[in-house]
């Protein structure tokens, strides 16, 4: 079966799932059915994506259409293949998760219907073969996600978070339309393939403008700093699977868009575009992780780490474009491959982490890390699954995050192969920034895992949390995927190299995979490694000593005594590091960025007041909201006030407006 056929199956599955959910008005059985259908559709999506990766672009299928609206045109392109497979995986995991997570009911029915349609929309975006189809699908995804976030409209901040999302994606949409219009006008075609083949017709200035518009437009969705503010607002208020979908897929659609423009539609641009993209990515990565470090809310924390990962992906793309501009076609293709790999990894573990965050919130009733603690004893299964995801996202071997980030670094280290020293230095600087980001990411996730799961429970809820029917299948599947993406790295690289081959026309395969399980990135004389052997080795290194210890040692001569506590105290939960105190050193080191504020007052300073309560708080200034967006919002409001007088409400005036507009359009046409 061709990739497109799989896509049809998936689409059908999601439509049916939506229908089933709605039909039953949220009857448990039909919810169940809906989830099963949605899962099957996801599986089909995986298959479709995989075959698209493998067999390359399919033919373009057109349906219906008219001169004005344009036609519906679909195509399974190999660039979209990776994203489609990821979409399938995410949908499958969420389907396995949702029916346990949501209590049955009409709201759930609507929610699931919206969710399945959103999946459909994403698939449409990925399969769109012409501009109109793409834009319509894109817009529908935006609206459907807006509804997803509004699952619990009653709760505080939900409306606000959803609005941040909608406002920013609409702003982005306008820019996208502009970008596409430029391309369509200059290549006289609405079809992506033709645009790609006629890209040389686009004058340089227009091409750069189109790319910048697209970068910004998709950047809103992908969460490039400073366009990222919707993520930390929308993710916490969305239901767990909703935010998992947002971070695992929707954000990656932004990356897809950028890749679409950078590699398929406008293959090789000037170097400065690449450097610009790379810089934006590097800054995004660093700032994302730095803000993640000072979040106490689990989901806001994960949202910021999503921003960081987007940054890493975009950095890879940008570096690829730079190399392309300097004619390093192998590196150009290779970094695209590495970026796509990271997309797949990030989608997997970020979905996993959001789903588990949902489990924690569900069982303990809070997302505040400083109210959790000791969950490893209460939720062992979640603890194991989350640990896998955490190791992955912290890019520690032998998990998948390490593989892709290592590949990206290997690419960036080739910076010296561009002719220009300056560019080489810039690329290395970007690599250094990613290095800092990687280190901080480990710090952040030691904190993000240690505070909630290790130590003592800080509140009664977290002390009494229990594993009763929390969904395990979904996150478990993703955990398996994380391991598979690491252990099976050579296979993944092989598949991706075929896809990249179709996109760029560069065949990486023989250089890249000489042996079966070894990868030689970028340049044969530079470096090589084998994630598979590494995994085997690391597992052996950790397990064998334990076995020796257990076997070689008689149990008798070791005694167990209580933890040394200095003599008299009994440990209390308040005597352990909390999320905010753990990250205190960063607030000191990067205070220029955080501008931390400390508020503290004591009941009284008399010796008598000493044992009285002390109020102490330290907060981090939300720089971008305060110094960038608040002014913008004010400006918009001012503008609205200014143009209100136009809205007189008199029909004749509006007719006059219409007349003037048509007149203007006519005159422009005539000139």
């Amino acid at each position, binding site marked *: 079966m061709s990739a497109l056929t799989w896509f049809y199956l998936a689409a059908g599955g999601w439509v049916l799932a939506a229908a089933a959910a709605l039909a039953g008005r949220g009857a448990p059985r039909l919810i169940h059915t809906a989830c099963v259908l949605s899962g099957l559709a996801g599986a089909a999506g995986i298959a479709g994506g995989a075959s698209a990766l493998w067999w390359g672009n399919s033919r373009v299928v057109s349906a219906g259409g008219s001169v004005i609206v344009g036609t519906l045109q679909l195509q399974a392109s190999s660039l979209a293949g990776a994203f489609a497979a990821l979409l399938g995986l995410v949908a499958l995991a969420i389907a396995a998760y949702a029916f346990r997570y949501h209590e049955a009911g009409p709201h759930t029915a609507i929610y699931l219907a919206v969710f399945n349609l959103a999946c459909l929309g994403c698939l449409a975006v990925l399969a769109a073969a012409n501009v109109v189809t793409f834009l319509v699908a894109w817009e529908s995804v935006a609206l459907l996600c807006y509804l997803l976030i509004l699952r619990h409209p009653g709760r505080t901040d939900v409306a606000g978070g959803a609005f941040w999302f909608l406002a920013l994606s609409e702003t982005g949409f306008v820019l996208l339309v502009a970008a596409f219009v430029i391309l369509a006008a200059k290549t006289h075609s609405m079809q992506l393939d033709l645009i790609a083949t006629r890209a040389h017709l686009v004058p340089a200035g227009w091409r750069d403008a189109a790319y910048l518009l697209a970068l910004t437009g998709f950047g809103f969705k992908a969460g490039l700093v400073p366009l990222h503010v919707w993520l930390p607002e929308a993710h916490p208020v969305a239901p767990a699977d909703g935010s998992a979908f947002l971070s695992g897929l929707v954000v990656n659609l932004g990356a897809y868009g950028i890749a679409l423009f950078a590699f398929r539609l406008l293959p090789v641009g000037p170097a400065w575009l690449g450097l610009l993209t790379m810089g934006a990515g590097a800054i995004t990565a660093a700032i994302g992780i730095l803000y993640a470090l000072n979040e*106490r809310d689990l989901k806001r924390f994960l949202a910021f780490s999503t921003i960081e990962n987007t940054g890493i992906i975009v950095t890879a793309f940008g570096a690829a474009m730079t190399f392309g501009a300097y004619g390093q076609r192998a590196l150009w293709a290779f970094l695209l491959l590495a970026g796509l790999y990271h997309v797949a990894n990030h989608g997997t573990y970020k979905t996993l982490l959001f789903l588990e965050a949902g489990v924690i919130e569900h069982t303990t009733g809070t997302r*505040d*890390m*400083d*109210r959790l603690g000791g969950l490893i004893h209460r939720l062992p299964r979640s603890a194991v699954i989350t640990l896998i995801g955490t190791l992955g996202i912290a890019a520690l071997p032998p998990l998948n995050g390490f593989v892709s980030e290592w590949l990206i670094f290997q690419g960036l280290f080739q910076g010296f192969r561009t002719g220009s020293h300056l560019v080489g230095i810039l690329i290395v600087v970007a690599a250094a920034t990613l290095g800092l980001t990687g280190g901080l990411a480990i710090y952040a996730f030691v904190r993000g895992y240690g505070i909630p799961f290790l130590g003592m429970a800080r509140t009664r809820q977290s002390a009494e949390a229990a594993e009763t029917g929390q969904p395990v299948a979904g996150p478990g599947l993703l955990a398996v995927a994380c391991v598979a993406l690491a252990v099976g790295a050579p296979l993944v690289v092989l598949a991706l190299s075929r896809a990249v081959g179709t996109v760029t026309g560069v065949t990486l395969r023989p250089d890249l995979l000489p042996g079966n399980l070894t990868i030689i990135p970028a340049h044969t004389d530079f470096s090589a490694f084998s994630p598979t052997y590494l995994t085997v080795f690391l597992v052996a290194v950790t397990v064998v000593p334990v076995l020796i210890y257990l076997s070689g040692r008689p149990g008798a001569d070791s005694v167990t005594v209580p933890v040394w*506590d*200095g*003599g*008299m*105290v009994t*440990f*209390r939960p*308040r*005597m*352990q*590091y*909390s*999320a*905010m*105190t*753990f*990250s*205190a*050193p960063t607030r*000191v080191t990067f205070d220029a960025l955080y501008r931390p504020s*400390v508020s*503290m007052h*004591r009941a009284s300073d*008399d*010796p*008598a007041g*000493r*044992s*009285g*309560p*002390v*109020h*102490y*708080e*330290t907060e981090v200034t939300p720089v971008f909201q305060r110094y960038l967006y608040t002014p913008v919002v004010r400006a918009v409001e001012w503008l609205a006030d200014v143009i209100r007088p136009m809205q007189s409400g008199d029909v004749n005036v509006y007719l006059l407006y219409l007349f003037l507009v048509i007149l203007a359009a006519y005159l422009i046409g005539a000139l």
Partner: protein
Amino acid sequence: MTAVRPGASGTLAGLLGAVSGASLSGIGNAVAVRLPAAELERAAHHLTGAGARLADLFAAGQDPVDLHLIWALDGEDHYLITQAEVTGDQYPPLSDIAPAAFAEECEIYEQFGIRPASGKPLNRVMLPPHAGPDFPRLGRQPPVPPADLHAPHTVGGHAFEFPFGPVRQVGVESLYYGLVTSGEEIVDLYMFTWHKHRGLEWRLRGRTPREASFHVERTEGLSAVGVGWAFAAAVEAALDVTAPAQAQRTRAVALELERLYNHAAATAALCQATGLSIGQAAAEIALERLLRLNAAVFGHRYLFGVVQPGGVRRAPDADAVRGGLHGAHGELRRAADALASTNSFLDRLEAAGIVTGEQARRLGLVGPVARASGQRIDSRADHPAPPYVEHRPAVATRDRGDVLARFQVMHEEAAESVRLIDDLLEAGAGDGTQELPAAAGSGLGWAETPRGEALVFVGLDQDGRITRARLRPASVRNWRGFDDACRSQNVFTDVPIIEASFWLTVAGTAR
């Protein structure tokens, strides 16, 4: 020690004018004013207004309990004791007027079961949590057990408590403190010391002064002479005995030797806290030489058994002093000079553990800590007892109130001590003891220990046995400035440095 002429004191006259029903008497060398309990509050207001320093507050007797407030009139060369009998279980809240009194209010509550009329919760400072009704006390068991100190709970997540001790570094006393930190800076700090309380004041009852002095100088081993002298002076005041002049000079020699070795030890501890082990070694060489000098001069490295009520038991070996003192002090001075030019050391001291003069005054701090905060308090100069009447010390002060200021004050004092010892030996220091009559009486004694003013109040019954002995070493006062010093913009690695610069003992405050 000469009794002070009552009328001589302007503050006293003012007090007598301010309160009604006051009756004047002389307790040995101090002036005592007995007031009705109702007048206590007004008297406290008046005295604090007149700049008197509430040096101590304690209770004695049982039904009624007899409150003693000891006021230091630092400007007027004498102490003023205001007494009031408290019937019932409440007395006017004094710590609202003189905040320094709070710890004593807590102690009185634990020991006598009476509390200030203010509703503020009283903390556990002395007796251990397991102290039940049959636990030995000076008075009655409090109706409600005192509150345990604990970390503030409203810091949720933004700071956490760092439990430390009581078993902590090697070779230091047991002390527990809970450090509340935001990960870097110190938000709050509290400590308890009841696990070292040996019930000394309870122990001394019914003993003769001579017997008691054995335990008195083991109250705070590092100021055996200072506390021992204060006790001896109290007994002598109570019995109106005067120690021979050469014995008093011997006491002073011993006291200044004690100051020397304590300041050397504090310097060594500072170096250890700042991780400057080579400086520590230098200071410890000086310290060991000073201790050996003590052994050579008085036959004991820590000068135990030199002072006894009525006089001294040993005469200093003047040749040993002349032979060793300047060499040993030179060792210390060279070490201090080298430290003063070691930036890595000074950087840790500067602006660390600041105690403002205001804090020092409100908390009633004494000794080098207060002097480093610009408080010119030195009982050798303010309340000179022989031999300090003719051998006046120059008081060293600083204004910054940080660790460096304490370091400098200590070393100025050390030099001054050497000068005093030379003068005292010049004037002639020998042994000699007055016999103590077995008679009733009560008296106040004081001495400037290396940590500051130590106060002892003694009450004797007619056959000369102790009915109430109040021991107040300087550590009792200065620990209450420690948490403020730690909270003043310090990161928690500064705490050991601040502790070393205070150079207090837990034994002294727990006694």
